[in-house]
């Protein structure tokens, strides 16, 4: 269905263009915070829209829902180690096993729902986009089975651990007028956290990747979920 996906692409492109034109003429180049937030919202929509148009089967929906619920519940299981959470690892695995579209949904819906329990905030929108993209890129990488190579897998996990705080700090600084010095001043106290997240991601990928992949592949076979290229 090439026409359908290209319509959604055109719509998104028009939206983004409209936001940028607004940003330049209406806000006169100020208000980065709103602009970036709007762009984050409108970048999420085409993924949802595409999934919606495909009219997925009940089984596909259930698998994604189960993974999201597991991601949220896992946060409770590891609550005794603060900050040490397997959510990102689960999203990476979901993207690798189920493909990029389901990976995006797993990531962004886990962000939305875990924020329903732990509190929504201005960061929710960015979190939905970033976690979604983490799942999407995992799916993209695994199209050629790249994540089966340990080096790529672990470096991807490390990048994902660092990415979130780097981007959120960038957006915070952007809101009040960007200077490199201010950005670095905010990043330095965040460094230990980044290292911590990267270590926790690598640990979880180390322990969870193989068993979880095995389980998911078995589920795929049993539920009759095949890869995207076989889908009509």
């Amino acid at each position, binding site marked *: 269905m090439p026409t359908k996906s290209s319509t959604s692409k055109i719509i998104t492109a028009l939206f983004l263009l409209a936001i940028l034109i607004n940003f330049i003429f209406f*806000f*006169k180049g*100020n*208000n980065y*915070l*709103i602009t970036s*937030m709007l762009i984050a919202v409108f970048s999420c929509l085409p993924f*949802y*829209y595409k*999934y*919606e148009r495909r*009219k*997925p*089967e*009940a*089984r596909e*929906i*259930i*698998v*994604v*829902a*189960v993974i*999201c*619920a*597991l991601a*949220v*519940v*896992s946060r*409770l*299981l*590891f609550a005794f180690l603060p900050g040490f959470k*397997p959510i990102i690892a689960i999203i990476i695995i979901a993207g690798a096993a189920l493909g990029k579209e389901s990976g995006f*949904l797993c990531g962004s*819906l886990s962000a*939305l*729902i875990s924020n*329903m329990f732990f*509190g*929504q*905030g*201005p960061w*929710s929108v960015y979190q939905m986009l970033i976690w979604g993209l983490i799942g999407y890129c995992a799916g993209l990488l695994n199209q050629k089975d790249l994540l089966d190579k340990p080096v790529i897998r672990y470096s991807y996990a490390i990048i994902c651990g660092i990415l979130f705080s780097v981007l959120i700090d960038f957006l915070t600084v952007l*809101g*009040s*007028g960007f*200077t490199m*010095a*201010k950005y670095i*001043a*905010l990043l330095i106290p965040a460094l230990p956290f980044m290292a911590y997240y990267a270590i926790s991601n690598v640990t979880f990928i180390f*322990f*969870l990747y193989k*068993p*979880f992949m095995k*389980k998911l592949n078995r*589920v795929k076979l*049993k*539920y009759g979920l095949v890869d995207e290229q076989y889908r009509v």
Partner: protein
Amino acid sequence: MREFKTFHPFVNLLYFVAVIFFTMFLTHPIFLILSFITSLIFLIKAVGLSEVKSKLLYLSVFFIVLALVNPLFVHKGATPLFYMNGNAVTLEACIYGIVFALMLISVIFWFFSFNKIMTSDKIIYVFSTFMPTIGLMISMILRFIPRFQTQLKKIIEMNKIGDNPYKSKSIIRRLGVIFKTFSILVTWAFENSIDTANTMKARGYGLKNRTTFHLYKFELRDIIFIVFIVVNLLLNIYLYFSLNMRFYYYPEISPITIDLGSIINYLSYFLLLLMPIIIEIKEEIRWKLLLSKI
């Protein structure tokens, strides 16, 4: 905020989107102070004074850090206060730091209230009107979570037999048993949910001409509220641009204008923010009147 909560979900959403958008868009200090005050009143009304107090400590730390970062690293501005390492700390940068911190704090306050008003059922409803599949997924996830938690408890109880490995002194043994628990949960979750998938299929999920059910009705007051918000938004945007209310902090702080037009602008913005609180107070008075009649 009992009364505002009973409004249609789209009304709640529109109000919060409008308010949060304006709080982030208008950097004028008077607009920001109005938004901050209202967000605080709204939050106290929504969650109670004691819960707000418990959050105040870390929010004030956050506020101070944000307000300090700007003057320390931005040296724009016309009036230097003092010099530090050869760099000027300017009045403008100090004030902009405070204003920016105030804005972020008000947005966070609005989001706290958003969490109280937009409960998960309303978010599902909003999603499902535009994207039924995503809405269905969210509602399923919200059902699965308590179900998995119950199962998790059962698995943990089972594993506790013998010497309790969850309280073991060696952290490796403890982590090992937790990973084992998680693995059991994952297998169980997938095996169990295949029933749900089969049931959905058997009951005709995805067929044409199926109806849906929800509890929300669009009433007259919802329409009035939406019309009020839209008219107020348009008025505010018109006044803002026709009076040229844009506020500049660099290189010099622009003066705060107080004339008829700008006062109308402040008041209409304040009214937009206050509307749910006014509705709430009106209902409280009505309730007391009804009580006094008994």
